[in-house]
């Protein structure tokens, strides 16, 4: 039924045979007896993802949190407080007291407003870090895997070295003399933690680079960079998406930890982590001030993690059929 010999001749030797023969191959391909159009991978993934109710709810909550952070000025307008304005007479108000919906902090600043602005920092760092990790790790991994030889050895030994120092310790070492803004923090995180993702990409690229379609494009004169960018990386995309969505929660936690240790974004600019750090000294006076920023971190990392798990199930090629 499948015109294998014709398809083969058409692909291996496209200049032999007249146009009608090639057309007939196409017609045969259309006539394979499918009752409905072939579903694209992305459609199938989205259909699977939609069926996973937990992941869908987590996605909605994540979107809500992102909107909450983006709309921080609106939150500030509604609460009537700014994130930096002190009200020293109204320190550590309980939630609901004196018009502070979620209470006030040790300087009498509105916690809800600070949460919204802090969310901007936390989400910005996590988002930017994931993007820079994908770029850096993807580049290093594909170069190492594609070229092999001493390039591969050099890059992978560097990865080994990075993997044997805890990322947090490296970040602490850097921040011991350098106070980064959110953008720089994201790049720093990427610079010290590209080892894992680049190994993943490298493995995939090695398994792909001897396939026929790579040889075919090399035969028609494609350059190395074209093969990597147009033929190899698109095949790694599903794995990258799954990896990235599972990396976001851990990056949110990393940012929170760094800020908590006083090495991330500096006061008065809030981030969920440095709000927790501030709250620690008031642990005897106000439970809500400790509880709320941490809960925010927890919900965000939990939801992004659940979305990541949902994406993994939706994109996992082993579950196909």
């Amino acid at each position, binding site marked *: 039924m499948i015109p294998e010999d014709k398809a083969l001749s058409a692909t291996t030797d496209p200049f032999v045979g007249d146009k009608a023969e090639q057309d007939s191959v196409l017609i045969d391909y259309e006539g394979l007896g499918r009752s409905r159009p072939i579903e694209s991978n992305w459609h199938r993934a989205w259909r699977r993802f939609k069926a996973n109710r937990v992941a869908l709810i987590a996605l909605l909550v994540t979107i809500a949190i992102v909107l909450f952070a983006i709309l921080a000025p609106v939150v500030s307008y509604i609460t009537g407080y700014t994130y930096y304005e002190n009200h020293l007479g109204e320190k550590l108000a309980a939630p609901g007291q004196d018009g502070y919906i979620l209470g006030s902090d040790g300087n009498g600043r509105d916690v809800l407003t600070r949460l919204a602005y802090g969310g901007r920092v936390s989400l910005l760092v996590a988002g930017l870090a994931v993007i820079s990790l994908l770029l850096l790790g993807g580049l290093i991994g594909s170069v190492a895997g594609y070229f092999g030889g001493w390039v591969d050895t050099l890059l992978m030994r560097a990865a080994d070295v990075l993997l044997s120092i805890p990322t947090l310790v490296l970040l602490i*070492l850097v921040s011991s*003399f350098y106070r980064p803004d959110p953008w720089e923090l994201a790049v720093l995180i990427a610079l010290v933690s590209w080892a894992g993702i680049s190994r993943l990409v490298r493995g995939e690229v090695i398994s792909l680079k001897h396939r026929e379609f790579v040889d075919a494009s090399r035969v028609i004169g494609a350059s190395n960079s074209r093969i990597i960018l147009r033929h190899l990386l698109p095949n790694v995309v599903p794995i990258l998406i799954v990896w990235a969505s599972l990396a976001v929660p851990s990056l949110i936690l990393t940012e*929170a930890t760094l800020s*908590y240790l*006083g090495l991330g974004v500096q006061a008065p600019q809030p981030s969920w982590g440095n709000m927790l750090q501030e709250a620690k000294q008031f642990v005897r006076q106000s439970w809500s001030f400790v509880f709320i920023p941490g809960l925010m971190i927890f919900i965000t990392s939990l939801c992004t993690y659940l979305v990541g798990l949902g994406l993994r199930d939706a994109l996992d090629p082993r579950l196909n059929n």
Partner: protein
Amino acid sequence: MFRFIVRRLLQMIPILFGITVITFIIINAAGSPLQQMEFNPRVKPEDIARIRHNLGLDEPLWKRYFIWVGNVLQGDLGLSLINFRPVTERIREVMFNTLLLSSISITLSLLIAVPLGIYSATHRNGRIDRISSLFAVAGYAIPTVWLGLLLILLFSVQFSKWGLPSLPVGGVRDLRDDGGLGDRIEHLILPITALVLPQVATWLFYIRSNMLEVLQQDYIRAARAKGLRNKTVLYGHGLRNVLIPLVTLFGLLIPDIFAGALVVENVFAYPGMGRLAITAIGDKDHTLVMGITLMFAVLVIVGNLIADVLYAVVDPRIRLD
């Protein structure tokens, strides 16, 4: 076994070399330690030149690196810039505390996670399995900092408010009466709980999924078919095969375990290497920060060596020499 360990130790040399290079580069990116003097109008330029010469800072970078590495190889990590005590001495004082914290937490979390993971896998979708899966997801996403603060909030602050026996907020022993073993244990309960819960979550996730995979294998069916008792099948055939990926995971998790200890030490004011690292950063004590980074890296490498040896122990197919 001996030859294997020696070979692994030799393989570590390039990694250790890379670690010293990275640490040295990062710390030198911080700029000259004499920077503050250069801006001080009361310090004469010839004095600065003299100090720079005495400290060897006028030598080229590569030469300074080899001088430093030479000293490190002889076990000399330099003097702390704050109190001029040897860095090795300051690290040695607290290293035991960190090792105690991490080793107890690893042991405890495995003792909880292995039976629970096996039970979850054999009673798939049962009540315990659902609860433990929920716990595994939540434990992955929870910020360690927040977990620690919540434990303090509940067991130290609220319990003492309610008049219940409460646990200490932090530290390693009661300062008023130099308590014995009971006092030490009391101070360890909360930090270890904060470390164990996320670790159990991670282990649980992997043990359950690996066990599920193993239970579908032919050799399990064969073992059941020849009439072995359920316990023998699960623990003799199932668990033995789950241990192999578990040891790999153990090697990969070691940096995370030390990073977790670092965070927990800072939440609970527990005098360990992580606490010392953050103190050293606050003091701008570069030599101490470098020393701690190196020590963390060495601990991770030693942990990986242990994992490699364990690997050979649990998998008889792996020959050591």
